[in-house]
């Protein structure tokens, strides 16, 4: 029951946050220089007067301010994120077409960096002063300092040009072999480089975090107890210590998922990956404001949902905070 009440509170909170994002979107349209109707149409003056009149009517731009806001929110509530005059499609449809590639890219990079990062963190925490440990620290520092788009380009130069074992751009080859397996392998082949680019950045963070967290846990009393009762080192590390050390990693992965989803813009642009980030880039180039504002709202939605799920997962993993 307490869990349900707390869940209800969280949901209310989420709705409030999303409402705030929408109000910000609305404010941006009105604060931007120029006619709001032109901002909504989102082109550099290429829209006909009829279209502008249609937008003014549809969005009630001749009405008082609060009526306009309510009209806007009403449209969003019906699942209408606006219409892209550049792509000539509803924004919702545009986003829907691009969600899956981004999801594939972000999830695979996240899983790779979390698993490998935790593993490296545990390894280095066991011997914090070893040469390998310093190497990992150095690597994570470098990974954090390199611009992600540049890492991607360097990987492209190395593995698509100097030693061409991976395709240059896109998600699928132009000439496709029939069959599901061939298609899946083709996508996987295209996925490797963008996934690695994204994973390198996050790998640095996860190895640092899990190292710190593991060092913290290894100093606690229950680990000494586990060792005292004569458990093997492997059992102490992987069964007792890791369970607690992994909690901050899970939190960070959950919180980061949403931001990664939005931050894939640069990687998707470098690799011409047909995802939401690339769509954001394309719509920016064309000053297609309904699309970019729609993506902004959709990304905030993803962040909020990811945070909510992280919270729930945390409750499942850590029984200590069940009734909070």
């Amino acid at each position, binding site marked *: 029951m307490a869990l349900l009440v707390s869940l209800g509170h969280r949901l209310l909170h989420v709705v409030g*946050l999303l409402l*705030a*994002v929408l109000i*910000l979107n609305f404010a*941006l*349209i009105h*604060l*931007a*220089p120029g006619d709001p109707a032109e*901002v909504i149409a989102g082109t550099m003056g290429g829209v006909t007067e009829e279209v502008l009149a249609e937008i003014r009517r549809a969005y009630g731009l001749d009405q008082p301010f609060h009526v306009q806001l309510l009209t806007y929110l009403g449209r969003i509530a019906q699942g209408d994120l606006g219409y892209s005059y550049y792509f000539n499609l509803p924004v919702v449809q545009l986003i829907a077409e691009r969600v899956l590639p981004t999801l594939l890219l972000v999830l695979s990079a996240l899983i790779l960096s979390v698993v490998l990062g935790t593993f490296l963190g545990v390894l280095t925490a066991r011997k914090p002063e070893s040469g390998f440990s310093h190497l990992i620290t150095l690597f994570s*520092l*470098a990974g*954090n*300092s*390199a*611009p*992600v*788009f*540049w890492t991607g*380009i*360097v990987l*492209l*130069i190395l593995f*698509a*040009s100097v030693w061409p074992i991976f395709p*240059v751009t896109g998600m699928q080859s132009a000439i496709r072999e029939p069959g599901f397996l061939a298609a899946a392998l083709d996508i996987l082949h295209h996925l490797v480089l963008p996934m690695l680019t994204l994973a390198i950045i996050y790998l640095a963070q996860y190895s640092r975090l899990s190292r710190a967290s593991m060092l913290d846990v290894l100093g606690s009393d229950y680990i000494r107890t586990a060792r005292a009762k004569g458990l093997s080192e492997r059992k102490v590390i992987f069964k007792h210590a890791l369970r607690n050390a992994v909690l901050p990693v899970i939190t960070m992965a959950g919180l980061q998922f*949403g*931001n990664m*989803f*939005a*931050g894939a*813009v*640069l990687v998707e*642009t*470098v690799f011409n990956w047909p995802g939401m980030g690339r769509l*954001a*880039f394309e719509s*920016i*180039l064309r*000053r297609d*404001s309904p699309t*970019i*504002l729609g*993506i*902004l709202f959709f*990304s*905030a939605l993803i*962040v*909020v949902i990811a*945070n909510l799920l992280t919270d729930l997962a945390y409750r499942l993993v850590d029984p200590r905070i069940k009734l909070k």
Partner: protein
Amino acid sequence: MTTVNLNPAGLEPAAAEICPPGREAWRMFRRNIAAVAGLVMLCTIVLVCVLGPVVFPVDPFEIVWAPLTPPGESEYLFGTDYLGRDVLAGIVYGGKATLVVGITAALLSVVIGVTIGALAGYHGGWVDSLMMRITEFFQVLPALLLAMALITLFSPTLTTITVAIGIVSWPAVARLARAEFLRIKQLEFVRAARAISASDARIILRVILPNALPPLIVMAALNTGTAILFEAGLSFLGLGDPSQMSWGMMIGSNRDYILSAWWPVTLPGIAIFLTVLSISLIGDGLNDAFNPKLRER
């Protein structure tokens, strides 16, 4: 090693010599080879970006040689880009925009973050919950996309870009400042200040803030690195100020030619990498220097 004795009456001469915290931190910082290397590297980069344009007054946008000439095959040391512009001149001139935007945006994020965090942590109650709601709202917004939207809707000038980066990067500062203020306001010297009826503004600015500074300085350093990466990313996407040469813009405009020419994208990238790396090293060094637990080593 010179140390200042804070004991004016000259009593207890045998007691351990006490340093002012700033000097103590500097002493620790100097011992950290990586951090000093970072500082030297950053100073060099800043010097090159500030003095370079004075010593070599050229136009980085000028076409000087055949397009995509590799390094070493002409008088232009780093070769030329896809239009035939000097890559070295671009790197020397391109750092200024990146550094100015990065540092100003980081300062802006610290000012906003400390203001919000200090108000929340000091006052508590409804002020705290309101400030934290605002912070949470900005944390939910995807930073890069918000900055992109702001720059698209308004014009891509250096000011817009700086403000956009500042607006998206303050929430972490606010959380840290709030936690520090919550911790420090319980301490005795703050209660003492209150007992002599010091004003709220005085307690926040003169009593608590100086004691909350060390972690905030570390965060400011890290934020500068992030802001530089941010600026580079935006310029790479073509959202930078088109009239200013910048490292990100060089990479972005040459990226269609990477399969035939590696230098116009790789070299500016190394410049960004070294700048951010040196700032991270300094940040790590400051973090250790301010940590009293590490001092005795």
